[in-house]
Each structure stands twice: as C-alpha cells, then as structure tokens.
C-alpha cells in the first residue's frame, strides 16, 4: 500500500499538469478563456427559461432552475465518463514510451470535468440569487451529493476506459446509452408526472437518487433521508470498486492493444 502512495506522490505533479493541459486546451484561442466555464451554463439558462416558461409547462415553481440543476449533475456525469473513456487510447503514444501509472489519465479527466462542475455549480447559485429564490442553509450541504457523483463517475470512467481499450465500438455505443440515460434521469421532467412502472425504472438509476438529494438540499430545505444517503454512498463505492477491479485486472494488457 505504501508503495502505491509513494508512487502517487511522485506523479502528483503530473496529475496537476494533465488537468491544467485539459483546461488550457479547451479554452485556447477563445477571447474570454476560462470564463466560458461560467458563461456557458448561464447562456444555457437563458435558453432554458425561454423554452420552458413558454412551451413546456409543469407545475413546478422555477422550472428553469429545476432543469438547470438537473443539467449540472447530469452533464458532469456525461462529461466525466465520456472523456475518461478515451483517456487511455488518446494517450497511447505516451503509454507506449514511458512508465506512468495509467489510472492518472482517468483521474485527470475526471478532475478537469470536476472543475467544470464547480463552474456550472457557481453559475447555478448565481442564477438562484438573480431570480431571488429563497436560499436555505442546506445549500451548503449540497456539495455532498456532488462529491458522491464524482466518486460514482470515477468508477464508471475507469470501467469504460479499460473496456474501450479492448473494444473500440463502446465509444459509439456509449453516446447512445447516455442519451437514453438522460431521459431515465429526472433532468427535464418532475418525478411526479411519471406513471408507476416507468417510475420504478427511473428510480433504479443511481443518478436519480443523487440528483434528488441535490435538489432537496439546494431548493427544498430538506435533508436527504439516511436511507437515500446510504444508498448513494453504497452505489458510489460499488462503482469505484468495480472500476478499479476491472482496470487493474486489465491494465498490463493495455499496451498490447493501444
């Protein structure tokens, strides 16, 4: 175990350089630069408010905020897992030449998505202040479900990264899968409008639980029940354990397939 930690500390500067690279390249040659991480969700918000306050109407107060909060969580999951998936094959040139702990590439992608999450989370809070919704003290706890989503996404990301090295068509399948998953997560619709059977399916989706906890804390001044929290922690750790297991089982083979 201590050799693992030592190895991680030796390569910790690499992790920060990789994250910095991801962020830099994303906003290279744009005048506003990193400000886009904040502006993007804000612009999104404007569109959503126009669409949802005129066309679709559910009886939820501040429906645009409801959708935006769903997007913050879901987009993070989508972004983190999709970019993790290709992290190993995109760095093939490097992995073939130099010894680097391979999980660092997955970790770096999840971290850079996490930076984006922080920006869109800030944007969400700004919008809440701007539209003068009531802010409760539970808002301060809303980072807990977000951290759980990060752990969950890291696990799924490692699993996908390891599998994609072997089977490239997962890349194409996964984008279809996430589109489906978005509709199985209450991002743009309220849970209350679902008929019984579909409701069950949506509840089976781990993201639903994280998102509901997040919304309860940020909008409804409600603490998550112990059961929901335990389920969230359990699902996050299970995903992480599965991801790590598959990744470590296969990582020595990566080099032969990239």
């Amino acid at each position, binding site marked *: 175990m201590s050799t693992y930690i030592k190895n991680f500390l*030796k*390569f*910790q*500067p*690499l992790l*920060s*350089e*990789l994250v910095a*690279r991801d962020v*830099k*390249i994303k906003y*290279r040659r744009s005048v506003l630069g990193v400000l886009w991480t904040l502006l993007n969700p804000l612009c999104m918000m404007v569109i959503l408010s126009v669409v949802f306050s005129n066309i679709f109407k559910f009886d939820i107060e501040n429906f645009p905020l409801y959708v935006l909060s769903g997007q913050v969580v879901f987009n993070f999951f989508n972004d983190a897992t999709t970019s993790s998936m290709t992290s190993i094959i995109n760095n093939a*040139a*490097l*992995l*073939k*030449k*130099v*010894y*680097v702990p391979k999980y660092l590439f997955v970790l770096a992608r999840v971290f850079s998505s996490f930076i984006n999450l922080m920006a869109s989370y800030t944007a969400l809070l700004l919008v809440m202040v701007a539209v003068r919704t009531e802010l409760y003290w539970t808002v301060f706890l809303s980072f807990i479900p977000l951290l759980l989503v990060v752990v969950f996404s890291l696990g799924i990301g490692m699993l996908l990264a390891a599998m994609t090295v*072997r*089977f*490239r*068509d*997962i890349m194409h*399948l996964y984008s279809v899968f996430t589109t489906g998953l978005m509709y199985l997560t209450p991002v743009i619709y309220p849970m209350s409008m679902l008929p019984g059977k579909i409701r069950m399916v949506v509840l089976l989706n781990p993201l639903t639980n994280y998102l509901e906890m997040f919304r309860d804390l940020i909008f409804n001044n409600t603490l998550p029940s112990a059961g929901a929290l335990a389920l969230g922690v359990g699902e996050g750790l299970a995903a992480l354990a599965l991801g790590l297991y598959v990744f470590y089982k296969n990582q*020595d083979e990566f*080099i*032969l*397939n990239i």
Partner: protein
Amino acid sequence: MENDAIVAVDHVSMRFNLSSEKFDSFKEYVIKSIKRQVSYDEFWALQDVSFHVEKGQSLGLVGLNGSGKSTMLKIIAGVLKPTRGRVTVRGNMAPLIELGAGFDMDLTARENVFLNGALLGYNRAEMEAQYEDIVKFSELGEFMNVPVKNFSSGMVSRLAFAIATIGVPDILICDEVLSVGDFRFQEKCEERIGNMQKKGTTILFVSHSLAQVEKICDKIVWLEKGHLKMFGDAGDICRIYAES
C-alpha cells in the same frame, strides 16, 4: 555481485499474441467467439534473457532489427511487463525513448517543458529551476511561446533531449536518439551524456552505430532473434559483431 546491480534482468521472456485476424470491436469479438475463430499466433520477442548492469557502468544493446532490443528497453523502463522472469531496477530512471513522445502538440514549448518534466517525476518548482538551462541547451530561446506543432522535427528533438537530460538520474535510457539533429547538436548530446556518466549515471543505450556504442558503453548485450547471443565487455563484442 548481483546485489550491486542497478539493473538486473533475470531470465526474462516476452510473448506477444499476434491475433491472426485483428479485431477491435466488441461485435466482431462476439461473432468470432461464437464461431470459434479467435486464434492467436504466439510470438516470442525475448526468450530467457539474463544480464545485469552495475552502478556507473553503461550498457549497449546491439542486434539487427527485430532482435528485441526495444522490447528489452521497454521492459526495463516498466512500460511492458515480461511474460516470464523478473527485472529489478534500483534508482530513478529517465527514459529518452523516441524523443518528443510526451509532447502535446497544441501546447507551447514552455508549457510542454513542465508537462514533460512532470512525466519524469519533477514538480513545478524543480522545473522552474532547470528552465533556463533547458532553453539554453535547446537553443530555442525565442520560440518558447510557440505551440510545438509549429516546430520542425529537429527543434522538437532538441527540446526533448534537453528536458530528458536535466538533473542526474541514476539510469538514462536512450533508444536511437543520437541520430537526430545536426552534426553539431549530436556532439553536444554526446558531451552531455559523457558528463552524466562521469557523475555516475548508468546509460542504457541502443544504436545501430557501432562507433557510438563503443564510445559510450562498457558492456554490451548482443541480442539475436530474442535470444541473448553474447554479453560482455564492449571492445570484444564490438569486434566480433562487426565481423559477423
């Protein structure tokens, strides 16, 4: 004697599976598995190779193309895991395998210095201290804020060499790298490698230029089709190798 070895290669064999029909999609894999068409041809790139290098010594690997030299270096560097046998390395390693592999073409030269330094295990502060030296050695002073994609291949090699040879690593791995750059820069590189040797760095060196190998190395490993043909002092082996 084995205990003083900085690199000990112990009965190493490396097998590659060459799939007779390459498939990399899940669909194909399932279909082929069902039809039982998944077959592999085995290929042994290295078979039962053992040698060791003591601290301060330098080792050259010679052999024809496909004899397993690069595979050997990759195993020592930890990139590949040997199918059988064991490699023990004591001390830190600076790999200089194919210059510029660690560069991100979209980043500027300056940013790449820090990225590449991190790949070698140096943190930002250590790299700041070395930065001036790298710029000076690579002679790229006015190009440091230009993205590397706009560099010529000679410029890339110069920068990569300058980064890889900062500090005094215990082991430096060079795979065919001295054949880059112009005559003057090659001399500069050889000089720098010579200086590192004086400070006690062990060099693992692969080259097709026998003259270079003889100049730099004390010991030579001669590989032929994955087998160890000879291991011994540089002078003797170079003579035999040149005659064969």
